[in-house]
């Protein structure tokens, strides 16, 4: 293609390449197995709600947005992140089609298409998680508006400090907005995770990314982090809305804003690193692990 035409359409082919990668990813048996696992996990979570979310021995009649917020706030995080980690464990996908794309376009565009592909993967995974949980939770969720716990607290059946939905959420947002707020930290944590795995994959260390993140995800369970110094915060401390805000009463929103700003800067640096590494790396793709 003529140079002038290349400059006129700098993003040409980006969405096509990203869509090709996404299509290959969605056709992977590994992804489908993990989707089935996520579906089973959501089923177990929703089946367990009446037992775990109780007041005075009776299930609390949470509405659907409230149930979804409770899960996104902290309930979903570990297992869904581990399952998603397995889905994205091979980045970039080592298929010979990558060689064809590299021949047809510039390295920079190829890397940007991978970044777009990562974004689509994360959005797809979050969407599937919410849809699958909704499928199982909606039938037994209560109907109504507002926060159920506010009514229970007013009626004296519940203490403020027993509430599952934090006070700052109940006082400042609607249930639906709260769900959107809760998705944001998880989205950024997962985006950072895929960018790190992609970066290490381009550097010729494809296994290191999943191993590092597997360790990080399980570290707050396998290590006695309470014995560690306060200043040493594991990355998991910035992964969910609850983890970000729990130690900072009365400044939850500013804490959330700082965390998001930090994530944007970090992801920007990772994208810059991807562009740099992508231009220099020796990329050889062959189909050795394609299922």
């Amino acid at each position, binding site marked *: 293609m003529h140079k002038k035409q290349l400059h006129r359409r700098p993003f040409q082919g980006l969405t096509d390449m990203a869509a090709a990668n996404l299509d290959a990813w969605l056709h992977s*048996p*590994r992804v489908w197995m*993990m989707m089935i696992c996520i579906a*089973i996990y959501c089923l177990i979570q929703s089946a367990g709600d009446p037992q775990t979310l109780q007041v005075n021995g009776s299930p609390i009649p949470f509405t659907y947005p409230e149930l979804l917020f409770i899960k996104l706030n902290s309930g979903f995080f570990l297992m869904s992140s581990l*399952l998603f980690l397995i889905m994205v464990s091979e980045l970039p996908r080592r298929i010979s089609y990558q060689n064809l794309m590299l021949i047809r376009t510039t390295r920079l565009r190829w890397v940007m298409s991978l970044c777009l592909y990562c974004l689509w993967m994360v959005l797809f995974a979050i969407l599937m998680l919410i849809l699958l949980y909704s499928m199982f939770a909606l039938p037994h969720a209560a109907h109504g508006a507002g926060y159920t716990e506010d009514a229970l607290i007013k009626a004296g059946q519940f203490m403020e400090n027993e509430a599952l939905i934090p006070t700052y959420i109940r006082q400042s947002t609607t249930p639906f907005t709260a769900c959107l707020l809760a998705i944001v930290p998880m989205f950024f944590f997962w985006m950072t995770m895929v960018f790190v795995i992609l970066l290490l994959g381009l550097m010729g260390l494809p296994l290191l990314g999943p191993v590092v993140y597997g360790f990080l995800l399980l570290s707050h*369970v*396998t290590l006695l*982090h309470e*014995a560690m110094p306060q200043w040493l915060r594991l990355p998991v401390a910035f992964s969910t809305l609850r983890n970000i805000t729990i130690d900072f009463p009365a400044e939850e929103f500013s804490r959330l804003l700082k965390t998001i700003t930090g994530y944007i800067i970090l992801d920007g640096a990772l994208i810059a690193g991807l562009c740099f590494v992508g231009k220099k790396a020796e990329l050889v793709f062959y189909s050795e692990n394609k299922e």
Partner: protein
Amino acid sequence: MRSELRQALFSRWFLLAFLVMLAVFFGMSAPEWFVSWDWGTEYRQSALQQAIMPIFFGGTMLLFPFCACAAYAHSQSEEIRTHFLGWKLLRGSTFVYARNKLVANFVASGLSLAFAFLFHAFIWSLIALPSDPVQFSTHEIPFSQDCIYFPWLNVMHGLPILLWMALGIAFMGGVWGTAGLAVGIWIPDPLLTISLPTFLYFMWNSNATYLLLGFRLPHASDLYNDALTWPMVIHALWVNLILLFVLVCIYSIGLHRRGHHA
């Protein structure tokens, strides 16, 4: 059989499973020891308490099936992908191959975890005081009277407890390693060989059967965890033997199918 066992026990994956499990054990016990550095010797935990704390309170549960399957089960998917399975089946019979694979995998999975536990206990026996609840009240572990560990607490500084737990860990490691093998023969993906049994283990421990079907299964760690009574042990043993039988059947059917279409 000898070559299969040698391959299983002297591989880097066996070592990896051992090291990961060891790291999980020390990840819980070491910080606890460091936090109590200024308490005085008589107030710190005993070697027995340090050894069993990660089992009772730590994240061992999460990584248990991962390590069990990582020890040798992934070799099944490798043999399928490299078509080596066909050659091995040609050289012997399906029965001999299955027997060697199942035994080697069971032994490797169980030993990698049991060795990690025993090595961890051995290290703490060198660092901490031997368990002596009679002399040091802080060494007391509040087992109930019908718990199987209760009479062993004052026997050889709790050594029978450690040996029992090692045996339970080895058996359960072998069972969940067999789960990895059963997955690997049907889905030759090394990552799924390790992750699917881990997910099943997690669902088992989340009372999935109770939530979905209304009946409870014994906890997956019931053979070596705390609050064990002899009826619980027998019940857990039966359930796990049935599970092992089902997994062996799944593996055998898968191997038979692979052998036909190899």
